[in-house]
């Protein structure tokens, strides 16, 4: 179980869940239910990393993806051409990312989907057609209320979501405040909450200091490749691509030198990044030995090619060929790629025959 001793359980293993432990439960109560459990202190950094990992893994499967640190992920599959395929792929990727079979729920909104997933066996999907009917027999303790408010619901005799749904929103608002109104809407399956879509971060960079300063171009290329590998791994984790690339060289006894470029299609792999940066370094003539190299990706955006695969099979390939040609043009000039369009085919001058 993960959670502070004096606080609440944040996450629990399948074995602990089987003993009746649920996230949000007081840790002391959880220990009572599952005496053999090991308590692990929360690691916010690791949890955030895991959240990023899961978010990027699911990012291209639906237009809106939200992942919470307590281990719940939502995909809004409205508008997705084949939702079933998306869900199957989500299961596969989640299993790869976390090493466990996820529990899956498909429902009209985030609240009912979370409760449906909580009732599924690992690797299985619980599908809900009508949220209100599904929610009605469930305990009112599933509502996102604090302990005191849940206690008051109990005292009012509202022990199931069906009972909560049966009273008016204003009546419960007078008892619990705004959360009361919200709770009634949730219990009625009206899903008042919206998902907060995960977006890849907008900036990243990598740098390396040289001691002693280097002049050797091969060494610089070697380091640049390593930095590109690091950045590509980070971009892959975030499902992002670099729209702008900036390379800055800090020199020993001269002002720094830099070069940057805006690319038409976001670069996301190490090969793509090093293809551009390596070509710059090969022709760079620094005025002094280099003390530090920075590679910055100041403008990131979603790696579009991955998103395109979501809509129709095979589209991605055509897009990739076009973007590969554009990358060649960016590096070597527009004249490298020629698409012949008939112009004056009967002209004796070859250059006039095609536009």
């Amino acid at each position, binding site marked *: 179980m993960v959670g502070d001793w004096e606080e609440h359980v944040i996450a629990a293993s399948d074995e602990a869940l089987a003993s009746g432990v649920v996230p949000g439960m007081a840790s002391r109560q959880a220990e009572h239910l599952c005496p053999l459990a090991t308590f692990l202190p929360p690691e916010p950094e690791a949890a955030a990393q895991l959240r990023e990992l899961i978010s990027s893994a699911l990012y291209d499967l639906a237009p809106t993806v939200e992942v919470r640190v307590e281990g719940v992920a939502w995909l809004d599959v409205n508008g997705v051409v084949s939702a079933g395929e998306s869900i199957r792929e989500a299961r596969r990727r989640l299993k790869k990312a976390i090493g466990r079979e996820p529990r899956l729920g498909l429902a009209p909104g985030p609240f009912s989907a979370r409760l449906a997933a909580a009732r599924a066996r690992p690797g299985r999907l619980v599908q809900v057609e009508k949220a209100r009917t599904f929610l009605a027999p469930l305990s009112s303790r599933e509502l996102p209320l604090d302990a005191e408010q849940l206690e008051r619901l109990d005292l009012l005799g509202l022990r199931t979501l069906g009972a909560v749904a049966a009273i008016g929103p204003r009546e419960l608002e007078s008892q619990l405040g705004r959360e009361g109104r919200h709770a009634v809407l949730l219990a009625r399956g009206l899903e008042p909450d919206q998902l907060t879509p995960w977006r890849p971060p907008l900036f990243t960079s990598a740098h390396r200091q040289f001691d002693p300063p280097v002049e050797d171009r091969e060494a610089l290329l070697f380091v640049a490749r390593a930095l590109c590998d690091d950045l590509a791994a980070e971009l892959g984790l975030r499902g992002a691509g670099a729209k702008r690339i900036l390379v800055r060289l800090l020199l020993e006894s001269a002002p720094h030198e830099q070069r940057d470029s805006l690319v038409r299609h976001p670069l996301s792999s190490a090969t793509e990044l090093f293809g551009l940066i390596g070509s710059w370094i090969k022709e760079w003539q620094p005025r002094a030995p280099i003390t530090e190299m920075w590679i910055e990706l100041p403008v990131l955006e979603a790696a579009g090619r991955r998103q395109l695969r979501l809509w129709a099979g095979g589209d991605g*390939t*055509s897009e990739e*060929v076009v973007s*590969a040609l554009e*990358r*060649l043009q960016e590096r*070597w000039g527009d004249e*490298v790629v020629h*698409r*012949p369009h008939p112009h004056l085919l009967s002209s004796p001058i070859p250059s006039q025959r095609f536009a």
Partner: protein
Amino acid sequence: MQELDVAINSIRVRFGSQALTRAAELPPPQPWPSRTLIDRLSGIGGLPRGRLTVLTGNGTCGKLTLALALLASATRELAHVIVIDHQSGFDPWTLLPYSPELGALTVVRAPAPDLAGEAAAALAKAGAGFILLMGEVPEHWLGPLESAANRSGTVLMGVLDAPGRAFAHASSLSVGFSRTEWIWERGQLVGLRALARCVKNRVAPPLGETELEIRYPLGAQSLFDHRVDIIEIPVDQSKREAPSPVSPASRERGQSWDLYQESAVV
């Protein structure tokens, strides 16, 4: 030979039966049917997808004519057909007699061999349907090119006089062309006959051979109204008499295919 078999067996015993696979045991690559003589020479009914096919031969021997016919055929069937042209001056105009779909054609004019290699590897990786290499690519690009094409199933074809060792090694199918005679009619050169021989085949049993006749576009009609005739002829018959050209319509009906099968020398 016996020692080699013992070594192979010991590797399989120690590391598993899949650790070492004979080429003959590998499944053949998927073919792309080109409807030309190459289909039978390859032994799999088409050009191997994801592999490099090389057409070689000295001087005027028909290799480029056949490559252009294949290129035009690819433009009609595939979405992205690429010509990687490194200083050979490929002119799309020469493709017109083969009725290409120019919308699918892209020419990459590489100012340096390195760029030719990089472009070919990048486009193969991206999944271009057909790539025609008008010359060699540097050796260090052959590995990435092969693996990229293998993953995407791109049909790679190279046309050159004499391939270097690395390029020849990288190819899975090599067809050598040699001109056997010029065709003269009424004192005018109208075409040539050439022998096409499979000199290397890693996708099927090798060493097929056929003879073909190529008729140049001649006469008052403009180039793009003309059709080039590439006709396969029986080897023994070609030595007795020159066959009349088969019309494109009859080729489409499959007559040349029958003729071709009869002429097969394997």
